[in-house]
């Protein structure tokens, strides 16, 4: 997750193009009414460009700047600077979104309120002593809508909170809640290492979209509708694509196994002769993908890497 900016890093100086862009869009951005002058806007552009992902550097800088949500960025930065007018606007626009998103994610009113309140405090950004302001809104870079960013941040906070609370649950409390602690199932050994090797090789050859589709559906058990919504296509499209990818991968794995010396029958059996109980995907296997924390909040205060 993103790291917090360093306490006072050396700020990049705006280029001539960035200054020109700032001059061109200063009035449109609404920065003036929030007390952000033109040089400050140019400096903001320079900061965002400097944090730009190298993967997107094939896009012209001007196009990149043109793609950011300028007004929302200015509003967020003004809020982070403590501008009261900006906060009025922010609350009028996003307060409902914040709480509604929290409610939708937490699905329980008290938890949602707690989630939104804590996030609001972080957005407001005053420390426990009320002296130093370090608003989370500083992290907003205008790449997506501010509303969408708030949703993402709420979701992150919810995931972090869930993991934290889960870690802190005592054994007694878990037992009181009726949790059952079953013995871990022994790992089902793959009969032939060639199967594992073939599967790994073929999955590695998939492109990112296809892999994302497979893990979302088969590991995370996301519904077709959820995946379709995220990708902006109809769920029937996702279903067809899923079918094509799964069948294709399976066929290629079989072919690879045959090439590695298995008979067609053996390859078929290796793929098909799977106990239904083995198809259950355990949560720990899914979570094993995770790179360990630090997450968004843990890195607070650390310099950006």
């Amino acid at each position: 997750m993103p790291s917090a900016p360093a306490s006072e890093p050396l700020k990049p100086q705006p280029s001539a193009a960035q200054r020109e862009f700032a001059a061109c869009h200063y009035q449109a951005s609404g920065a003036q009414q929030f007390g952000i002058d033109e040089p400050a806007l140019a400096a903001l552009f320079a900061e965002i460009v400097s944090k730009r992902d190298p993967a997107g550097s094939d896009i012209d800088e001007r196009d990149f700047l043109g793609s950011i949500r300028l007004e929302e960025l200015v509003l967020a930065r003004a809020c982070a600077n403590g501008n009261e007018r900006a906060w009025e606007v922010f609350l009028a626009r996003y307060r409902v979104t914040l709480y509604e998103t929290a409610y939708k994610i937490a699905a329980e009113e008290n938890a949602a309120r707690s989630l939104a309140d804590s996030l609001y405090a972080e957005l407001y950004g005053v420390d426990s002593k009320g002296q130093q302001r370090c608003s989370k809104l500083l992290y907003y870079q205008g790449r997506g809508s501010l509303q969408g960013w708030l949703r993402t941040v709420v979701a992150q906070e919810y995931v972090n909170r869930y993991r934290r609370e889960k870690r802190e649950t005592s054994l007694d409390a878990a037992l009181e809640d009726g949790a059952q602690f079953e013995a871990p199932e022994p790992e089902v050994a793959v009969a032939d290492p060639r199967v594992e090797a073939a599967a790994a090789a073929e999955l590695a050859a998939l492109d990112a979209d296809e892999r994302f589709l497979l893990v979302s559906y088969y590991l995370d058990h996301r519904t077709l509708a959820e995946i379709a919504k995220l990708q902006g296509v109809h769920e029937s499209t996702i279903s067809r694509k899923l079918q094509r990818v799964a069948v294709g991968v399976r066929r290629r794995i079989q072919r690879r196994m045959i090439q590695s010396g298995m008979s067609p029958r053996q390859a078929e059996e290796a793929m098909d002769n799977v106990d239904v109980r083995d198809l259950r995907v355990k949560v720990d296997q899914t979570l094993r993908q995770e790179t360990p924390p630090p997450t968004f909040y843990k890195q607070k205060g650390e310099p950006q890497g």
Partner: protein
Amino acid sequence: MNPELPKPMLDALAREASPTAHPSPDELTAFVERSLVGGETQKVTDHLARCAECREVVFLASNAADDWVAETEDERLVAASGLRFSSVFAASAASAEVMNAPRMAEKPSRKWVPRLVWGVSAAAGIVVVAGLVLQQRFAAPNAAPQLASNEARNISPPAQAEQPLITRQSSAVAVAAPPSVGKPVKSARSKAVPSPSRDAVKTAAQQPFVEMENSAPRAAARVNTLSDSSAATLGGVSPSTAPSVAHAGALGSPVAGAAAARDGATGRLFSAPQASNNVLNTPYARWRITAEGHLEQSTSSGWTRALADQTATFRVVSVVGSDVWAGGDGGVLFHSSDGGRTWSRVAVSSSTGAETAAIVSILFDDFQHGALITESGARYRTTDGGTTWTSQ
């Protein structure tokens, strides 16, 4: 039913760990909104395919935005046929929602998302039916059914609409959200719209913001791309005279509804999102300023010029419910309180005389409180719905 993956494949999938750093919330948001540029999409997708935590976040955020209607393939089909009926239906739903002051602690209901699961043939059939219905509706806009529809949306009938808004006194309830964190307003859907009062509409006017922004997520507050650094001028409009982009949010609030303006640098148009774009002379119509400085309104047959008898060059248009404000060169300011049916000229003056500088920004926090900015930087405020403007 999709095929089940064999255990070896599932295990191999689960073993893949992401070697890259987590994308920022900005990047994840842009991924959800499909606004990543260049190779970023590939990079984020690749990370998501290997990182369960980020996938969880992305799906949570995506699912939370259930009022956001992605343009599905079926919708694109419909759009290609020239009818965006989903927008019309969405507008109806939105208007029904805003008319019914949402309760605060109610569990948010899922908004209706048009999903045509029957494939292209069903979509084509619906398009034909919708087209016929819309054609009949727009054939006689002043006919009784249309008026009935307008009444349902609390639009003043034409006789009342003849009265200029300027004479309207401030009886409306100020609806700007207080700068305190209170209980969230939850969307609530109700089918019945029993002749709502104007105040109810005003109070509810802040609600459609989420839906409006989401219906066109990149329309309102973005700066258009300048393809050429030398494109700072176009059509004789210098950067210094470039009018403002829509100020529905930054200078005002979501209550301001929507605004549109012309980008003087590129001549491209900015249109703030609206709840509907097919309804003639309703508060949900879309507005824009053309590169020539003309004020235009969307109709069922395309864009229609408004205030065509005026020679003024318009710079900015702002919409607050059924109130439309249009400003332009020479300090001209026009106002319509009935969604563009009737207009009245509003004088903007200070102690030094009438304002002559071009109006480049208009923003309303609510129906009563608004501000405008001229090209010279002068600011005017109104607290009575535009009856009087006070220089700041």
